[in-house]
């Protein structure tokens, strides 16, 4: 967890420096999009390449997929009233 926070913090410091170079700063969202695709592809590679995970999917995949779906729905449903309440606030729902 610490290493992730360090990477984020280093990026924040770099971002302050980058304010002096607006042309470079404009390229950051594009780099994030490219990196996002790279991350998702390698995550897929990691799942597909792991025989342990793939064998587990054959055995208990349906049960695990259902479990995950229900827990996701639980989190979303429980937080939905908060999200609706937040959106009612003037300016709520707008991205900063």
């Amino acid at each position: 967890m610490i290493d992730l926070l360090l990477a984020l913090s280093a990026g924040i410091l770099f971002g302050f420096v980058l304010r002096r170079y607006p042309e470079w700063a404009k390229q950051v969202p594009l780099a994030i999009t490219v990196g996002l695709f790279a991350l998702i592809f390698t995550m897929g590679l990691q799942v597909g390449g792991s025989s342990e995970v793939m064998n587990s999917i054959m055995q208990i995949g349906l049960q695990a997929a259902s479990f995950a779906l229900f827990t996701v729905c639980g989190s979303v449903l429980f937080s939905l009233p908060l999200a609706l309440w937040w959106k009612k606030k003037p300016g709520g729902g707008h991205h900063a």
Partner: protein
Amino acid sequence: MIFALIATLLAGIAVGVFWLPVGSLDTVSEGVTYTLYLLLFLIGADMAGSGNLWKRFRQLDRRLYLLPILSILGSVLAGAFTGQLFHIGFWQGAAIGGGMGWYSISGVLLGQTLGAQFGALAFLTNIFRELYAFVLMPFLFRRGFGPSAITVGGATTMDTTLPIINRYGGAEMTLVAILHGLVCSAAVPIIVPFLASLVH
């Protein structure tokens, strides 16, 4: 864009199953780690570059601090319900739900306390949760679910799913996601063993 992301994920899985050379999984894992570091670095730069970061942190709606608590509560209760549904036990299901997408630690913790079968189920359930997050988050943000969309990612919202949140939710949701991920990550090593200890 959303379908392109889903296609990329499926392509990665297909390449992993059919073409990944044996023994190269460690290299792939390293690749994931370094890509993640680079992305977090870029997200940090983007956050700092697009306005006064500290002011935005201070201005963050205090009500959103409740998000991780509701997210964990919903996941644990839904896990308990699913445990009953599949006849594997209320507390066992709750403990699996308490993993919040952190597959490595929840799998190990439940493997140690409830046995290998539950460890495997927790591991796979939380892998699925992370995969669902990649697929569902963009749709939920587009449909106006706002902070609720973040909860899909569980503990991963401060790492692997943060780029998706940054892309589809914007700067404010990125800050909320970091908070959500931090609280969930801190809670998982506490709540999973606690819920597992309630199994008779």
